[in-house]
């Protein structure tokens, strides 16, 4: 019985590359990893948005309407629905003049109980120290 903790750090804005989306879809895959593991073994995925990466969290993205592509917003909501821990850097939001009103906080319409956590960078540093491996996007 062991747990391996992974920290996914998203530092780039959405759409210009697939990275932020792949960060979310790979983190979500932590929910189905047990098929490869022994009973009781776990892989957990925490996700942090820092730097320009916080732009992924802006709400009302219309990528599906316009480009027929699932928006990063929807991927974040899926991650919340699957109870992943999502951190957003408070200082970076402030730097861009964004508030909690501007970003995805919950996915109540999907029945998600988890909420995005806006935290100081020091909390994200703590997460990076606690995980076993880091994955920067």
């Amino acid at each position, binding site marked *: 019985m062991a747990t391996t903790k992974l920290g996914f750090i998203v530092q780039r*804005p*959405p*759409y*210009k590359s697939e990275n932020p989306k792949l960060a979310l879809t790979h983190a979500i895959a932590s929910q189905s990893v047990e098929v490869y593991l022994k009973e009781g073994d776990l892989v957990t995925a925490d996700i942090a948005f820092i730097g*320009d990466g916080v*732009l992924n969290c*802006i*709400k*009302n*993205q*219309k*990528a599906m*309407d*316009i*480009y027929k592509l699932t*928006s990063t*917003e929807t991927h974040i909501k899926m991650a919340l629905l699957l109870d992943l821990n999502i951190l957003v850097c408070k200082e970076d939001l402030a*730097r*861009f*003049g964004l508030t909690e009103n501007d970003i995805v906080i919950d996915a109540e319409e999907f029945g998600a109980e988890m909420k995005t956590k806006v935290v100081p960078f020091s909390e994200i540093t703590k997460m990076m120290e606690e995980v076993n491996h880091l994955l920067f996007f």
Partner: protein
Amino acid sequence: MRLAVFVSDYKITVDTLDRLKAEKLGIILVGNGVYHTTIKENGNPSPLLKKSANFYVLSEDLETRGISSSNISGNIKVITYSELVDLIFNDYEKLAWL
């Protein structure tokens, strides 16, 4: 020359834009370039907007990223793909995607 420059990134890694000379310069913000219109770092508008140029932003790319066209300041013209085609053929003779 009448030159239209497409900017599709938020972080720009080339310094070409500052050095281009044109009698008529247009800057067309597409893709992640649209963040330059409203994202203010530490309260300051993007330095890109200080350039002496005609500014345009693609409405479809604003909406994709959750930015409302109504938040765009008056000196940036919000255009559709259809209007972009007219701009390309009627207003500029050379195009540059940086």
